[in-house]
């Protein structure tokens, strides 16, 4: 039986490699900058949603405040770059560490709450973070921070004319989150999280430290989200609280995973591939008035999926579930 699991995991790695190669080549023949941008943002959100999935999917702790980690990450790498000259390739990791630490700090009081109360607390904490940055002059307050162009550089993740390098950068990020989720699925943490998600009492009776499990998931999830924020800041070249810390951003990070299938390896990617293009298209067709419409679109999609495919879009690809079907 153990062999079947090993085999399935090997298959998944192979599929992961194929998908990675496909995604790497995807924008190469495309000359249209708008489409390239759309692909980059989609891949970035696939990575962010996978990061969210570690806490919200595998561990079952629904966070609606991940914009805070995203924002913290984007500010940390940007400020390290502008004020201390530390290249974003290093700042990226500082962003991950600070965002992960923030997730621990928030988890400390909030994980004492359970179920919906935890989700509500994350909304409130996210809003507090947004307001703090909005009124904090050192980080540019409401005006935000502009990242000046200093010439093409991989170390500083600055590319003037071409978008392709950014594509490879965010793809590496998305691949890292996928690999992390893949590895965690088979690790003792993955087991502990699924136990915590399903039944806290049973998990505790098996010697699982509930609080520590949630904290570990939060730190990893927040850390990866912060790294995504750092990459995003470097890509768009300008950040302010409204663009990286706003509440709707938290929803946007969580939704692809929810749509695609929470607690699954492929759900976040599939969800992002559907959701992000849909939201971008609705925005470009409807202009400034589209912001409300794309939210309605998300809502509609979620309702549709919840009704027709409660396990998420990933359940359309049945091959993965075959081994779980009872033999009898």
């Amino acid at each position, binding site marked *: *039986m*153990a062999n*079947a*699991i090993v085999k399935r995991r090997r298959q998944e790695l192979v599929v992961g490699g194929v998908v990675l190669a496909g995604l790497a080549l995807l924008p190469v023949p495309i000359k249209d900058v708008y489409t390239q941008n759309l692909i980059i943002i989609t891949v970035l959100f696939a990575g962010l949603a996978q990061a969210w999935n570690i806490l919200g999917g595998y561990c079952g702790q629904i966070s609606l405040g991940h914009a805070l980690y995203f924002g913290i990450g984007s500010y940390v790498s940007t400020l390290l770059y502008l004020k201390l000259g530390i290249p974003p390739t290093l700042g990226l990791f500082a962003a991950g560490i600070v965002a992960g630490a923030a997730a621990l700090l928030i988890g400390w009081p909030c994980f004492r709450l359970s179920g919906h109360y935890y989700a509500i607390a994350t909304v409130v904490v996210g809003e507090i973070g947004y307001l703090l940055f909005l009124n904090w002059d050192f980080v540019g307050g409401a005006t935000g921070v502009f990242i000046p162009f200093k010439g093409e550089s991989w170390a500083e993740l600055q590319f003037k004319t071409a978008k392709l390098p950014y594509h490879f950068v965010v793809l590496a990020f998305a691949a890292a989150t996928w690999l992390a989720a893949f590895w965690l699925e088979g690790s*003792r943490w993955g*087991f*502990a999280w*699924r*136990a915590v998600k*399903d*039944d806290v*009492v*049973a*998990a*505790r*009776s*098996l*010697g*699982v*430290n*509930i609080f520590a499990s949630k904290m570990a998931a939060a730190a990893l999830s927040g850390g990866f989200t912060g790294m995504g924020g750092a990459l995003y800041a470097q890509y768009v070249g300008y950040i302010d609280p409204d663009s990286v810390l706003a509440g709707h951003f938290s929803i946007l990070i969580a939704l692809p995973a929810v749509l695609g299938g929470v607690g699954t390896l492929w759900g976040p990617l599939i969800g992002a591939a559907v959701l992000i293009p849909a939201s971008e298209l609705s925005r470009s067709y409807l202009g400034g008035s589209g912001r409300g419409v794309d939210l309605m679109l998300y809502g509609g999609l979620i309702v549709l999926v919840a009704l027709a495919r409660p396990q998420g879009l990933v359940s359309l690809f049945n091959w993965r579930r075959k*081994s*779980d079907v*009872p*033999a*009898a």
Partner: protein
Amino acid sequence: MPHDPILILDNVSASYRGLRALQGVSMTVAKGEIVAVVGANGAGKSTLLKAISGQVATEGAISFDGKPLAGVPGHMITRAGIGLVPEGRRLFPRLSVEDNLRLGAYARRGDPNRFKPLDLVFTLFPRLAERLAQRAETLSGGEQQMLAIGRALMTQPRLLMLDEPSQGIMPKLVDAILAAVVRIRDLGVTVLLVEQRLVEALEIADRAYVLQTGRVVMHGTAKEIAANEDVRRAYLGM
């Protein structure tokens, strides 16, 4: 008083959902015996197990293997050697039988022998070996109970506590499960059994405690309890 005690409760009180569910309960469980705790619904039987496993706050002293359990967090109590088969089984329904058992070994992580109890589990419950890949939710009630016991055995307990193992199970399987409990005891694991089915529980138990509204109203050997007129009238309707 039994000698060589493994679990001692001294004047333990506990509240559960705002109700005083245990009031000054004292009891002793000796190594290698099966002790049954019987009583009607709401007598405090489940709260007793919750108190021992650290799920509810308690007053009074509980000690396991000579060490006080006060202030020991729930997950560490498992690691200290107290296994719990919770009421209603509480399996992980979407995980396979195998993954449920593997989670049982979680407390022993890092130990190269952590999957060793699997042999014992499959000897006790051969059906589980046949259904390893199935999701736990697809098992019958009896099989689920077997899995719950197997999962608890994977923690390598020295004291196994079972909360209503016969609940929701067809009578034929109840006997099989209680027989397995006896075999587990024979292998050296002490058993604390909470059960509503008085007759069956007293048949396999060495000693028993009768709980009524959170107090121990009677204790003695299982034979004495089974023969007691008051018990028979109150719980057996005879």
